[in-house]
């Protein structure tokens, strides 16, 4: 309880300090916290700005599409490679190597291939989210205790039963971590793509107000997006913790 008070006090002090520093300075460069609520209201009410809810919706749908693709392809390829260890041995190093490449270097190529529309954002979000998912499946399958599988097989369990009853529970924690990282990275991918050039979405909106030098609105949007991302991440963290508990 005291800790919570200290934390709140720290946040309050940080905001107050920033307010004092920013007040006398150029408001285009330094946005005082007190001017953010007004900017939020202007974002919601001013007709000269593109509608916020619509663009936020577009971004969330793009993230959902990118993440869904990443999960389906990641789980699919991961399980196929898990079935045939030879494939995993051959392709896991290639996938891990590609994962080591800083992801931004792919984006210009995706922009060229898929244009400035949502397709390039879905592709980038997919690419970023895919790697942690597929690598988590592989790691999870490799970490499953071989003895458990042998015991289950000797008791006459079918291949599917082994997958569902033995391997999945054993790897649930690892898998959930991978799925969570994948979601975070798909989100980053879509947002980065939108900020680097787009015609719709929250990133487009940020660029729009930013180019008008309406910095308080930009800060308000950044805080809003940050809050949405945090909520998603905390929810994913809860699910991950539960999966780890279940997996034991």
């Amino acid at each position, binding site marked *: 309880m005291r*800790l919570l008070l*200290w*934390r709140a006090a*720290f*946040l309050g002090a940080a905001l107050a300090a920033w307010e004092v520093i920013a007040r006398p300075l150029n408001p*285009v*460069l330094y946005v005082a916290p007190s001017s953010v609520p007004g900017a939020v209201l202007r974002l919601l009410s001013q007709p000269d700005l593109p509608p916020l809810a619509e663009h936020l919706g577009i971004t969330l749908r793009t993230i959902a599409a990118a993440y869904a693709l990443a999960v389906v392809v990641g789980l699919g390829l991961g399980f196929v490679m898990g079935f045939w260890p*030879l*494939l995993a*041995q*051959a*392709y896991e*190093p*290639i996938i891990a*190597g*590609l994962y*080591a*490449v*800083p*992801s*931004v*270097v*792919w*984006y*210009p*190529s995706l*922009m*060229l*291939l898929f244009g400035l529309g949502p397709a390039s954002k879905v592709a980038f979000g997919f690419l970023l989210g895919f790697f942690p998912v597929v690598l988590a499946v592989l790691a999870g399958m490799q970490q499953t205790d071989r003895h458990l599988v042998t015991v289950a097989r000797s008791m006459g369990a079918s291949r599917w039963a082994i997958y569902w009853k033995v391997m999945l529970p054993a790897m649930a924690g690892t898998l959930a971590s991978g799925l969570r990282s994948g979601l*975070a990275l798909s*989100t*980053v991918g879509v*947002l*980065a793509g939108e*900020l*680097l050039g787009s015609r719709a979405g929250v990133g487009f909106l*940020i*660029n729009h107000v*930013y180019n008008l030098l309406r*910095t308080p609105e*930009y*800060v308000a949007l*950044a805080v809003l*997006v*940050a809050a949405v*991302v*945090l909520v998603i*991440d905390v929810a994913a963290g809860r699910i991950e913790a539960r999966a780890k508990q279940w997996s034991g």
Partner: protein
Amino acid sequence: MERVTVRVLQGATLAAIGLVWEAASRGGLLDPLFVPPPSAVAAALGPVAALALPRLGETLLKTLAGYAIAVGVGVGLGLVLGAARTPREVVMPYVTALYSLPKILLVPWVVLLLGVRPQAAVLGGALFAVFPILVQVVGGVRDVEPILLTMARAMGTTRWQLYGKVIVPAALPAILASMRVGAVFAFVGVLLTEMFAGIRGMGFLMHQLALAFNAPFLFAATAMISVFSVATVLWLAHWNRRLGAWR
């Protein structure tokens, strides 16, 4: 035997992708304007190298500067926060929150503040790298065996000795791991800031090539930077192991 099979499989897959791509692009299945055949990309490697290597050099210098800032702040603050329980518990939730936020949201502000200049890319790189470093160093210092600290204090060590002889050596693997991860983040931050703001460097060059629909050059540049990145990561991992062995 299995090793050979794996190598053959890897080689055959890469060759097959290359051949199918080449055929599809030449045969008109893929528009060569967007997806040039690998042979055209390979032919572009030479001219691109002349164009891109100086830009890559500039980007790496900025990365180095941003990385140095991030290591200084991240490791320094991490050592202090990791060892001080109450401040750590007060501040860390905010650090973790910032760590998990997409740093690209801050890039426009950085550019506004510092202008379309290399300094903005440096700060962008530092911002991307500082949080992963800080979080890992704090974790590493926090997890130093308490008994080591108690023993050292009981023997009357000063604060500096405690850091130099106990905390830093014990947390070294975490510090080195954080610095390795941080290098990649700094590179990403610099590239993204260059792309966003149009600051001269490798990121902006690739962005320009994409907007100019110069697919062979862009793919060749992407291949170059990918090979370079993977080589760097492997090299860093190698050094990490050697430094870890010193302990």
